């Protein structure tokens, strides 16, 4: 079976257009990347509510903060690597410390901007956004979920970081699936091990589930679309019921989803955890699928991690 593929940024663009029609307070800002981020879809329909701030991410975040103070719901949009890096202090001090209703969209998350090389690959954004008080962090797994997540972000109060991908990835969720911020989705039941993933890697986790099933291993797959606040109930249940966890991050191992899961488990229900992700290195240019293979972020790597973590379970 071959699934349709779409970039999650398309889901963002569709959601903005829908929000534009239903909520006059939604404002979209971009930093000269409107075509890449899909914010230009909103701009085309609602030019009076779209502001290009130019190549100045810090000013864009501050401007969004001011709009929020004026009762607007601003979506500040640019590449994940720039907004999470260059504008981090603005996100911390002005947005999060003031707890303002600013939505931040990081496009080209992970290594989905593969050919652009390390400067444009966002591998630290989840970690640096996750440590900020008041911040919500969401990584939608496909274009359908990306649309729902964006609409949900507009409805919640407070700062929210959304990460999208550049590359077209499989669309494997349904319009009818319920999406709730902070509520993980069990994509496959399982009893031997749990794979916890976020973003388009959830699909790879499902492929790993199938491979493991062929070998008689029952793997639960959790779509942890909201990295913060972490769905601790789902993580605790997985630890208790399967006794072993694999986390997968399209990000540096330090501080990402795996870190969030491990931080929680170590003080609540320690079980063996294997973390799959980027091992403290900058990547290189290449197609995203080439990078995923070279840096060991495809289904077979999750399978290997699952077997390893099962072997570590207390006898």
């Amino acid at each position, binding site marked *: 079976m071959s699934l349709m593929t779409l970039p999650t940024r398309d889901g963002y663009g569709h959601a903005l257009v829908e929000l534009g029609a239903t909520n006059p307070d939604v404002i979209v800002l971009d930093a000269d990347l409107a075509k890449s981020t899909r914010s230009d879809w909103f701009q085309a329909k609602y030019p009076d509510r779209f502001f290009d701030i130019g190549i100045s991410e810090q*000013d864009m975040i501050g401007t969004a903060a*001011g709009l929020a103070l004026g009762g607007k719901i601003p979506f500040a949009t640019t590449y994940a690597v720039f907004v999470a890096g260059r504008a981090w202090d603005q996100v911390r001090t002005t947005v999060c410390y003031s707890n303002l209703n600013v939505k931040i969209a990081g496009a080209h998350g992970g290594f989905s901007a593969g050919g652009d090389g390390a400067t444009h690959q966002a591998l630290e954004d989840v970690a640096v956004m996750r440590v900020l008080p008041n911040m919500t962090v969401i990584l939608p797994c496909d274009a359908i979920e990306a649309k729902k997540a964006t609409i949900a972000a507009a409805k919640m109060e407070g700062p929210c970081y959304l990460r999208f991908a550049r590359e077209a990835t499989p669309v494997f969720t349904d319009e009818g699936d319920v999406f709730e911020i902070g509520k993980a989705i069990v994509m496959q039941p399982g009893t031997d091990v749990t794979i916890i993933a976020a973003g388009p890697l959830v699909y790879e986790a499902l492929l790993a589930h199938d491979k493991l099933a062929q070998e008689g291993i029952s793997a639960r797959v959790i779509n942890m679309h909201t990295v913060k606040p972490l769905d601790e109930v789902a993580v605790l249940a997985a630890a208790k019921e399967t006794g072993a966890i694999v986390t997968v991050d399209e990000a540096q191992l330090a501080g990402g989803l795996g870190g969030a899961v491990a931080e929680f488990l170590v003080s609540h229900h320690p079980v063996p955890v294997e973390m799959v992700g980027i091992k403290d290195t900058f990547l290189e240019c290449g197609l995203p699928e080439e990078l995923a293979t070279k840096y060991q972020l495809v289904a077979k790597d999750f399978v290997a991690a699952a077997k390893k973590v099962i072997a570590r379970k207390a006898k």
Partner: protein
Amino acid sequence: MESVERLKGICQDVRADIVRMTNAANSGHPGGSLSAVEAMVALYGNVMNHRPADPNWPERDRFFLSKGHACPVTYAVMARTGYFPVEELVTLRKLGTRLQGHPSCKALPGIEVSSGSLGQGLSVANGFALSAKLNRKPYRAYCLLGDGELQEGQIWEAMMTAAHYKLDNVCAIVDYNGLQIDGDVEKVMGIAPLADKWRSFNWHVIECDGHDIAQMLAAYEEAKQTKDKPSVILMKTVKGKGVSFMENVAGWHGKPCNKDEMKQALDEIYGKGNGQ
């Protein structure tokens, strides 16, 4: 509307408050607070449309303190205009206070946005001004900047944005006292010629004496009357103004008076023998 004489009297009280509260905290930033007293008293006394008893009144003009370390002057002016009791000022920087060492909007109603990391306030003022335009509301955004703070690149990004979107409801005020922590602004990292720079960024520039209440009131009025472009008031000031041993000494940027120094300071502010 208060008379100029009455505002001058409030300036005395605010100066004394700044000296007392930083002394009580044994830390804080008196120098760049004292330089902005007249600007702040004029703004809160006669210029801004606001309701101290109802700090969240939606129709209010907004003040954004970009140079967050100057919060002693903001707190003192807020207290003197009725936002909270003057007695609370000495809680500055103490555990549990609403008067955080750099202002927190979550701690104290009337602070519009938290600040302290320099360079960020003008962008916020712009965003708020944009929302006012979108809402077709007449309220205005005021933003106090330090001169040393202008070394932050984000300020210049925000200057472009305000002019690009013709935000004539933005009024920036630069506390041009010429000193920063490491010494003379022109020696640390020169910003001159400042008026030319703002003009070339398509701002309406108003230059005045920042310690002359009447000039400040006129400057704010000129800014209000200026259409289709943002205005900046470059007010020439003296760091530590009103306390002789603090004036034009960079070392008083972030150092409080001790008890003896405070006595002398209060004598100078109110006149000898009237300082208590």
